[in-house]
């Protein structure tokens, strides 16, 4: 009687490490499927969809691309609502910015465990490497992830397994521990060498990670959003808009989101019924959304800022159309602010 084929689910980010881990486990005869969690903060997808910058790069979701290269199924799971609690109340605190990396990994492994149980899979694995990341991938934190996620010894890290105690899949010989790896630290050379030996000539190498919460500028905008609203909460549209345009807060009670290019103009125009919007009419210029409750003089100030970022910045006056949320329009003829009239402190 043949041995039962074991099934494992991989956390697939779209980067090199999870790609390698999945290939290594699959090559051991395990049936592998992938999970990818969409938190709303993922770098994947959105910015290249909104902005025209880098338009020559392939507009693809790297986790799907990786799954296709590996010949495995990938399930993308929307965790936007559940993830809020991780961002707002991380039990293990934040990393350098607003990144709750350790809680995030515990959350995702826990979701994978639930998926495993529902789909009768045997174990979970990730592309984690001990010592690679300062918050979540340290020798002290890897056991915390296994324990607090509830995955315990059904959580395998194929790329650094030999540096860790043997897990259930290794002890039961579902996988051959000797054919796994002992990578450690931030050096990427072993992964690159393994990729070459497996014939991977192309793989994603996201600069700065795969989550906007690790980004200092983005985290600053999120903190500003919470401060201005007097509460720590968000909706998907809020966190999407933080990825778009220049954000300027001239006064505590209002903020402007000014597009930087056509793609952002198009994206922001989809929010014209939810925000007051401003756009220069007498010359080319950006579309801007006004978030807050402005007074009349605030709208004039906002129009002068919008004019500053258009082609009429040196003109005596620019005609700016102001559209209220209900569709009412008014036009303001306004002198654009000079560069030195936009203090750095306004930039969020």
């Amino acid at each position, binding site marked *: 009687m043949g041995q039962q084929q074991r099934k494992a689910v991989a956390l697939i980010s779209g980067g090199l490490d999870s790609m390698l881990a999945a290939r290594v486990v699959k090559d051991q005869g395990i049936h592998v499927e992938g999970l990818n969690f969409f938190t709303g903060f993922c770098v*994947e*997808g959105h910015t290249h*969809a909104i902005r025209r910058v880098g338009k020559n790069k392939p507009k*693809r979701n790297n*986790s*799907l691309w990786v799954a296709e290269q590996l010949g*495995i199924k990938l399930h*993308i799971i*929307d965790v936007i609502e559940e993830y809020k609690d991780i961002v707002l109340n991380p039990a293990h605190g934040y990393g350098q910015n607003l990144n709750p990396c350790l809680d995030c990994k515990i959350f995702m492994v826990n979701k994978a465990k639930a998926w495993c149980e529902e789909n009768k899979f045997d174990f979970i694995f990730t592309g984690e490497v001990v010592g690679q990341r300062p918050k979540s991938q340290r020798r002290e934190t890897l056991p915390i992830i296994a324990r607090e996620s509830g995955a315990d010894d059904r959580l395998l890290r194929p790329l650094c397994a030999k540096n860790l105690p043997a897990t259930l899949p290794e002890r039961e010989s579902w996988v051959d521990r000797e054919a796994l790896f002992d990578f450690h630290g931030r050096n990427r050379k072993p992964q690159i060498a393994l990729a070459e030996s497996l014939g991977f000539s192309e793989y994603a190498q996201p600069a700065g990670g795969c989550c906007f919460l690790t980004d200092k500028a983005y985290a600053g905008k999120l903190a500003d959003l919470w401060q201005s609203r007097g509460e720590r909460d968000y909706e998907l549209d809020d966190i999407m808009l933080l990825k778009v345009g220049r954000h300027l807060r001239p006064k505590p009670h209002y903020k402007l989101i000014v597009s930087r290019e056509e793609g952002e103009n198009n994206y922001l125009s989809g929010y014209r019924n939810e925000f007051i919007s401003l756009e220069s009419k007498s010359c080319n210029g950006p579309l801007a959304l006004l978030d807050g409750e402005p007074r009349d003089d605030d709208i004039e100030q906002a129009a002068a800022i919008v004019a500053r970022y258009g082609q009429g910045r040196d003109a005596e006056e620019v005609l700016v159309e102001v559209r209220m949320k209900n569709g009412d329009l008014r036009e303001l003829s306004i002198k654009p602010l000079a560069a030195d009239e936009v203090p750095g402190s306004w930039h969020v």
Partner: protein
Amino acid sequence: MKCLVAGMSENSFNLDARRLLCPLPVIRTQDRIKELVAGDLLKVTCTDPGALVDIPSWCRIHGHEVISTDTVDRDIIIRILVK
């Protein structure tokens, strides 16, 4: 509607994924297809050009067939035969 493709049922369904950015159109497609049966046709309308790559990729991975992709103004229409 007449069956134009072998294996296609009489049942066709629409999914509006406009204004959603990837991967949300993929997730909505994935979740809708879970509720359908082999032979059903799903027409997905979206606006993120990334969906033109990602939805066919998801379909290939899961064994569903993209019958056509069209662009009408800013709408992208992807027709999928559920397998």
